[in-house]
């Protein structure tokens, strides 16, 4: 992974000093609350219901064991012994003291980490496929491009006060999109043109939130070296012409929609004409320099599927089940990619304790070249595990409570912190997750249901990505009471789609029963091997509506 040089380190150190100074001036009363707000937000600090929340950047989800240990230390020393992985592959602390945040940033800087632009109306953490670099089907490793974007976006002088937040995702796999690229303000799909040259298909104007929209193609092919000048052009157009009068209409998706993608593209292209041959064009030496940080680790020449591994699969059903769901093929024979679900019953999705993080760091060292990844589904990955050692790894992970064999299943849900922590939320989301985990705890049933994305958000801001869940749950406030709206048919992969609302919302205590009813319709109607989303696409909304809202109370609004 990328290793800072003196320049990178100096920038982060200077950032710590800058934020310490800002905090001092705030605590001295020299910066009023409303002016401190964007300063602290650009450093990932929200003031929540009980305490500030500090969001640490995990650039494109990459972590080494030293960084994991530092995160665990901070959870232990400054929080209440746990931390929370978010849907932007970042890590959040829910209980730090405001005045201690600069000190925490100082500790993070020691391991080349920061909280830069993890919130606020600026360019946020760039995300990508959690399997980047280790799967055979990707075109090239997307992480060097993410790092190039990270450096360019860090304290960009022109784009620190955009109309609204700005999120970029990069995908390098044709036919699969684990980064939800088209739900981003800008999506970069790495491709080759007919001449075999590397470049990008550039999308803009996607996003979740109040008005979920899939992005549109702005440019079919952009050469590799033009990445940053083109991003400059897009964001310069947005910075000048994006709406600033209404924060719900301020994302770039609203501008693209208002202008039409053709007109928007014309403006971008006209801007880019001025920029494309300037110094912002990436020299091949810089591309090579960044790529050289993402070379392969020292893989051994191994045979695929060694007998120690296949024997364990044959003799231990529970291990086989975990492998079936949570382990996927690696590009190198004899290696595997293992995902560890942070979705234990009784804990909030994405939550980990300090001791789990410490232990996971040890697992990374022991089994995966000292590196790990966080995912936008709020799980952790060890990407380079020898198949022969998977059984031992699984046993250790099981002891830590990190080996739930439920990846991609109903209970591998995405969930925001919701009204329990977040001041923006309309409703709590964690109790819904917990109720569903309790209702659906039969592993055989879950495996029989197969792949289902169930996503929960506590409000319109959609941190829980409810729009793109096959089943989406959105917390709404009705005259001071918390209700939950269900949507069906959302999807986040290559066939991304925004879910449609099923009907009137429900009280919290009915949610487990409602989800059960929806699943019953699927189980009843599915044709061999169909996943939930495939059945939904075939039979449509009506069958689900009829089951959930029987005729006699179809008029009754919750």
């Amino acid at each position, binding site marked *: 992974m990328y290793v800072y040089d003196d320049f990178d380190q100096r920038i982060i150190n*200077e950032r710590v000093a800058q934020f310490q100074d800002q905090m001092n001036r705030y605590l001295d009363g020299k910066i009023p609350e409303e*002016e401190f707000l964007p300063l602290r937000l650009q450093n990932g600090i929200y003031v929540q219901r009980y305490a500030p929340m500090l969001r640490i950047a995990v650039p494109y989800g990459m972590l080494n064991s030293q960084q994991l240990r530092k995160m665990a230390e901070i959870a232990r020393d400054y929080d209440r012994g746990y931390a929370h992985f978010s849907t932007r592959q970042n890590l959040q602390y829910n209980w730090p003291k405001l005045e201690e945040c600069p000190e925490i940033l100082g500790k993070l800087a020691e391991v080349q980490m920061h909280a830069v632009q993890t919130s606020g*109306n600026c360019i946020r953490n760039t995300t990508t496929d959690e399997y980047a670099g280790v799967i055979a089907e990707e075109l090239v490793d997307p992480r060097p491009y993410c790092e190039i974007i990270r*450096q360019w976006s860090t*304290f960009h*002088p022109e784009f*620190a006060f955009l109309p609204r937040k700005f999120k970029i995702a990069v995908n390098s796999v044709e036919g699969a999109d684990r980064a939800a690229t088209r739900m981003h303000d800008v999506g970069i799909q790495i491709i080759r043109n007919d001449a075999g040259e590397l470049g990008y298909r550039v999308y803009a104007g996607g996003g979740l939130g109040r008005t979920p929209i899939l992005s549109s193609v702005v440019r079919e092919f952009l050469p590799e070296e033009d990445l940053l000048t083109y991003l400059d052009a897009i964001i310069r157009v947005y910075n*000048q012409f994006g709406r*600033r009068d209404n924060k719900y209409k301020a994302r770039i998706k609203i501008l693209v929609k208002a202008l039409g993608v053709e007109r928007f593209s014309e403006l971008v292209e006209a801007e880019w004409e001025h920029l494309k041959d300037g110094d912002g064009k990436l020299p091949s030496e810089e591309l090579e320099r960044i790529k050289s940080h993402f070379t392969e680790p020292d893989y051994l020449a191994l045979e695929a599927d060694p007998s120690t591994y296949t024997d364990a699969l044959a003799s231990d059903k529970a291990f086989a089940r975990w492998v079936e769901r949570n382990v996927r093929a690696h590009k190198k024979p004899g290696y595997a990619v293992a995902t560890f679900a942070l979705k234990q019953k009784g804990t909030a999705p994405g939550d980990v304790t300090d001791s789990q993080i410490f232990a996971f760091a040890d697992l990374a060292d022991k089994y995966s070249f000292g590196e790990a990844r966080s995912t936008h589904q709020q799980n952790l990955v060890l990407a380079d595990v020898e198949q022969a050692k998977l059984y031992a790894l699984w046993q250790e992970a099981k002891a830590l409570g990190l080996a739930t064999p439920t990846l991609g299943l109903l209970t591998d849900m995405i969930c925001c912190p919701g009204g329990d922590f977040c001041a923006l939320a309309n409703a709590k989301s964690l109790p819904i997750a917990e109720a569903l985990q309790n209702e659906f705890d039969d592993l055989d049933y879950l495996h029989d249901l197969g792949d289902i994305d169930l996503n929960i958000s506590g409000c319109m801001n959609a941190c829980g990505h409810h729009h793109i869940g096959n089943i989406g749950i959105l917390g709404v406030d009705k005259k001071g009471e918390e209700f939950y709206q269900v949507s069906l048919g959302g999807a986040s992969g290559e066939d991304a789609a925004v879910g449609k609302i099923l009907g009137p919302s429900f009280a919290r205590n009915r949610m487990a029963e409602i989800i059960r009813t929806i699943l019953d319709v699927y189980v009843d109607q599915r044709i061999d091997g169909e996943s939930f989303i495939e059945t939904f696409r075939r039979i449509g909304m009506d069958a689900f509506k009829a089951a959930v809202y029987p005729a006699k109370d179809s008029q009754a609004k919750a």
Partner: protein
Amino acid sequence: MTQIILDKQIANDEWILVADDAPLSSNKEVINFSRWAAAEGADKDALVTKRDAGTLGIQLNAGDTADLLANESQGFALINVEFPKFADGRGYSAARLLRERFGYTGQLRAVGDVLFDQLFFMMRCGFNAMAMRADQDLDLAVKGFETFSAPYQADVNDTRPLFRRRS
């Protein structure tokens, strides 16, 4: 006399912003862009004469993009770019375009809700003058230009991104 930051120093402000319907004198005066754009015939001639004498400045207000002024900018001794609220970042793009695209070399001044923590960004986008909000501490402000010693991006003062400065 009001004080501003000019070329990283505290300086006296020699300019006055005049209302759209106020008559102009031979002093250093700034008019809103809308007045300049609307002027015709003899009125415009008078403004051009005053501009060429170096005593007319122009102010881009919220929503006035730099391309409205474009190469016409070159004749002015002063261009103000208004920040209606500190969180409104349009002025950063306006400044870069004036400097980098339209060749403006005169005084480029940020006015309005201009606060200490924006100064470093403003300097990088080409502002060499800042009329800070009245409650800001100017003695502190002159230290606001040293925050980062080697930023990643190109800017108006150095067109090379860090990747062209690294070695």
